[in-house]
């Protein structure tokens, strides 16, 4: 197994707020291998973005602080680098694109100014050379007439164009890792598909790794090699993409899949996970998911009296398993190359606690999808 490009190990991040400390990232360990697309999935506020920002040490300090853990890249722990060296990592080794292309470009400078600024910061090149690199970068992301676009201001471009510009800027210094923090959330569906296709294409061409943060399972299914599902600051499930979609282990992941609307489904109501995301200042005890967990509720119905307790969540009274309330589960390798954080899996008690590492690549050839074997896939779907 080759060395990972980036290894996040036991990362813990805290924010001091007026109402006490909150812990948006707890014991998160994720490895990203060269050329891999790792998806980080979860609902708003689960700690995805803070994890990503912590890699680049971009969380505001204070109030934020990294309590413990390490983020190593090529033998260096990024969390311990002096600020000056960290600046040369940002943009050069690890680039990042953000959710909001409309506001991620500075309105007072032209596109060209902003790309060449990054280029000149990290590469010792002359002005004319920097402009050429910027032009090539725009061409790479499929912007027509890049020379003219360089002289345009962000307000002259649409959201999709701006996101392309952001990608061009991020890739202008050939980073080894691209962190894409919900790169398509602010865009409409057709543009989303184009941007993702572009990211996949560039990823293949340049052989870089991508940490893809999203809450869109469709995006995950189409792009990721490995998926980490986060809930309430913790990674609750970690597996290869096919494994996760075929055999989700954690009840939260199952719930997410059930909540995806399906074509041809005639039921009037979409299924949802009951309750709401817990407030990070007041996480429940035990398993953080137990107030919303259908698995625990089901099992509690059959359980003996002392094994289940009654709790109130979202104004509703029901019984869940005692163990879920009392004891926090660990992230265990419940199946080979599949980690989950749930007591109620039959294998849980025997499963080893290992650090999740997966040098897995997706089997579905995304090339085939792109080149239009859509009919074949639809047929397969129908047969299945």
């Amino acid at each position, binding site marked *: 197994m080759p060395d990972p490009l980036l290894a996040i190990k036991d990362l813990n991040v805290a924010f001091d707020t007026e109402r006490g400390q909150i812990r948006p990232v707890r014991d998160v360990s994720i490895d990203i291998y060269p050329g891999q697309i790792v998806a980080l999935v979860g609902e708003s506020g689960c700690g995805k973005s803070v994890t990503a920002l912590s890699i680049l040490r971009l969380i505001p300090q204070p109030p934020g602080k990294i309590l413990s853990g390490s983020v190593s890249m090529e033998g260096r722990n990024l969390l311990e680098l002096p600020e000056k060296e960290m600046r040369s990592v940002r943009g050069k080794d690890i680039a990042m694109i953000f959710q909001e292309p409309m506001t991620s470009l500075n309105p007072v*400078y032209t596109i060209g100014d902003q790309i060449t600024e990054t280029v000149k910061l990290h590469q010792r090149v002359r002005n004319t050379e920097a402009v050429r690199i910027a032009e090539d970068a725009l061409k790479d992301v499929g912007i027509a*007439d890049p020379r003219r676009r360089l002289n*345009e201001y962000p307000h002259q471009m649409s959201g999709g164009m701006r996101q*392309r510009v952001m990608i061009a800027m991020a890739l202008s210094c050939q980073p080894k890792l691209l962190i894409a923090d919900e790169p398509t959330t602010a865009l409409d569906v057709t543009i989303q598909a184009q941007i993702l296709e572009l990211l996949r294409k560039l990823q293949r061409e340049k052989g870089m790794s991508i940490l893809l943060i999203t809450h869109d399972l469709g995006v995950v299914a189409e792009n990721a090699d490995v998926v980490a599902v986060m809930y309430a600051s913790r990674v609750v499930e970690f597996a290869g993409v096919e494994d996760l979609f075929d055999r989700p282990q954690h009840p939260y992941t199952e719930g997410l899949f059930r909540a995806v609307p399906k074509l041809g489904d005639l039921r009037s109501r979409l299924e949802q996970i009951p309750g709401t995301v817990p407030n990070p200042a007041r996480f429940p005890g035990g398993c953080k998911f137990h107030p919303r967990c259908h698995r625990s509720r089901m099992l509690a119905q059959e359980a003996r009296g002392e094994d289940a307790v009654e709790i109130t969540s979202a104004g509703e009274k029901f019984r869940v398993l005692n163990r879920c309330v009392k004891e926090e589960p660990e992230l265990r390798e419940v199946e080979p190359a599949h980690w989950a954080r749930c007591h109620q899996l039959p294998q849980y008690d025997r499963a080893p606690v290992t650090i999740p590492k997966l040098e897995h690549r997706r089997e579905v050839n995304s090339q085939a999808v792109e080149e239009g074997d859509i009919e074949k896939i639809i047929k397969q*779907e129908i047969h299945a």
Partner: protein
Amino acid sequence: MPDAGTLSPKQPQTDPLVSSNDEQVEVHGPGKIAWKRFRRHRPGMIGLGILIILYAMAIFADFVAPYPYSDEERELNWAPPSSVRFSDANGSSFRPFIHPFRINIDENFNTVLEPDPSQRCYIRFLVEGEPYKLLGLIPMHTRLIGVDTVPSQQGGTRYFSRLYLMGADGGGRDIFSRICYGARVSMTIGLLGALLVLVIGLTIGGTSGYFGGWIDDVLQRLCEMVMLLPGFYLLLLLRFAFPASMDSVQVYFAVILILSLVGWAGFARVIRGMVLSIRKEDYVQAARAVGLSNGRIIARHILPNTMGYVVVATTLRIPGYILGESALSLLGLGIMEPTPSWGNMLNRAMDILELNQHPWVLWPGVFIFAAIMAFNLVGDGLRDAVDPRGLTK
């Protein structure tokens, strides 16, 4: 099993975003847009015109002024403004002229200045005058306006052919000439003072707002201390921090320093507030993510976004500094004689008796008024021009 995403529609071959756009769209930067809108603001353009005239007057004072600023004619003290005529008892003329002054002794043995209507001194343009160096470089002796001279001794009476467009002061110096030279001090001191405030305010406000925490606390308390003192007392206090006797150049720079030390606090506070909101913008986060240093982020990505306010505020603040200089000079604490500034020229107008007898000493006040008015008009125009909510016509 759930399968959310393998069913993706085939990507269209032509990408609507990438369609090439052949017609050339004129690219407008923020500055250009603001200028386009400012040009439609009539009072602002009038103000700009006045400012251009006043600055031209200051730069080309040697050329515009009929006499050097220290050119005295002591016998013509407090001479009234020359009345420029086109006709007199001897008929009319296309060329404007003035009557030369004649000194008489009245029945109380006081000297009396009176124009002699029997002689004419024609006003001429581009005449030979005292030599000077234009812009301090080009030696010249042509002046814009001058008058013909008449023989100074005629049968025991002394004649003076001097052009006093706005009268003369107690030393017989031409007030108009001195106003031209005084513009150099008064019009630049406000500008430089405002620029220095700009530098101090942007640095302190930017640092304070961007870094926050204890840096912000310390800098803000400092601002508050400066703002607590009433401006004029602070002005006087700072003036006494400098030695009383300095030459004109030293005083000039001292006054600039004093003005900016009084004015920076309020400005820095507003900048801090703006930086506090701008630093949360996504593009600042993005700038950090590409590895820019804090200093560069402040200078290149945050402060330029305050420029709209900065330009307007600076323009509207310049009048305050002009007045500050005038006030100091008026009290004799600013620019010293013989170097003229509009403020120290008004010094004599403080005496009500003198003002009564020679009302023309108020002329510098008119210029101060015009300059302040012009800066305010331009400032208002700029405010409308950079206001993003303004009508885009």
